[in-house]
């Protein structure tokens, strides 16, 4: 049978190893990803793992890229008014019990690792672009006047909001801030930047 007709055994082994590694990543972070644990979870020998990945760093890079490239944003319901869609989209990332939290943990791990390993940056940059791009569309829909004032304004506003979410999420994840307080602060900032001036939210 010609090799091209089915996903090769090597490909499916590689996929199984990557799957196990990304699973461990979102559960225990980069520190929890040891070659032994991944080999065991993927049910392959260490020798086979090293056939596919040169070393632990190579495996972590591939797993982070794999997880980041499959980062799935949950779109807020279409029937909500635009400003409400924006708030919903942002707030799903502040909190530790949400579905998004697992993916966000991997994103945070990648962010931290990228400071020392430039090979991780391209996948991370794509994820951030997607995150900013999605929020830019929601900001534009929520406040059409922003783009009229300045074509770059919706993107700048969206970037500020996603950076704030990243910061709040980090504090919630590290138990430095209760999730409810994080959401309250996010609401405050969202009102202020959408109003495009001094906040009059109480």
């Amino acid at each position: 049978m010609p090799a091209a007709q089915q996903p090769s055994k090597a490909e499916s082994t590689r996929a199984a190893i990557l799957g196990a590694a990304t699973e461990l990543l979102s559960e225990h972070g980069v520190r929890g990803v040891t070659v032994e644990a991944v080999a065991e979870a993927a049910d392959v020998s260490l020798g086979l793992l090293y056939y596919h990945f040169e070393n632990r760093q190579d495996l972590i890079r591939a797993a982070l890229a794999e997880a980041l490239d499959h980062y799935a944003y949950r779109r807020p319901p279409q029937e909500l008014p635009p400003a409400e869609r924006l708030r919903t989209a942002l707030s799903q990332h502040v909190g530790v019990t949400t579905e998004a939290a697992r993916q966000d943990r991997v994103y945070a791990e990648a962010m931290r690792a990228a400071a020392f390993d430039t090979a991780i940056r391209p996948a991370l940059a794509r994820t951030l672009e997607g995150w900013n791009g999605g929020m830019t569309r929601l900001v534009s829909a929520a406040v059409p006047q922003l783009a009229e004032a300045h074509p770059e304004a919706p993107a700048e506003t969206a970037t500020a909001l996603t950076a704030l979410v990243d910061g709040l999420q980090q504090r919630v994840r590290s138990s430095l801030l209760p999730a409810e307080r994080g959401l309250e602060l996010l609401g405050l900032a969202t009102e202020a930047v959408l109003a495009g001036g001094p906040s009059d939210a109480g």
Partner: protein
Amino acid sequence: MPAETEKPPSKRDRILAAAAQVIGERGLDAFVVKDITARAGVTPQLTYYHFPNRQALVRGVFQYAAERAPSVNLLHLDREASGYEALRSALHAEFDDSPEVRDLNLIWNEVTALPIEDPELAEAVQRATERWNEQVTIGILRGLADGSVETAAAPQAVAELLTALVEGLSQRWLAGLITPDDARRTLDVVLSTIRRA
């Protein structure tokens, strides 16, 4: 503790300064104590005397970085500027590619990015974050008093929000995704909402 105070304090600080550099270069998971000792030009015994284990060293370095954070220290120096401008330049000063500032930010980011396992370190981070929020709150109050800041929100909430935003931007800057200038511009989007027109 007499034994502690008899030691020249500069030795301990020299170790911490070296540790800040080494951790800034290699990260919290990969740094080697021997490199720190060598860079500080002190004996391993002296390092061990001040920091009996890795956790103690990490706590020391975190404290060292937190005490030197530009936005905590610069806020009160600029007496001439309006409260808003003093606040803005102090927060802007966090984004700087010079090794000293970058290392301090990296250490803070390394410690706070993920759940903190050492309870003593977690407590130190909590205290440092509170202190940072307090200092920024004082900056906002100064702006409210001199009329350069306007906000209907509680100053404490605005401060918390600004420091969280700085952390979010700092991550992106340290990860090489944005430049310090990008970070400042984005910070201004939120800061400008409390500037009195």
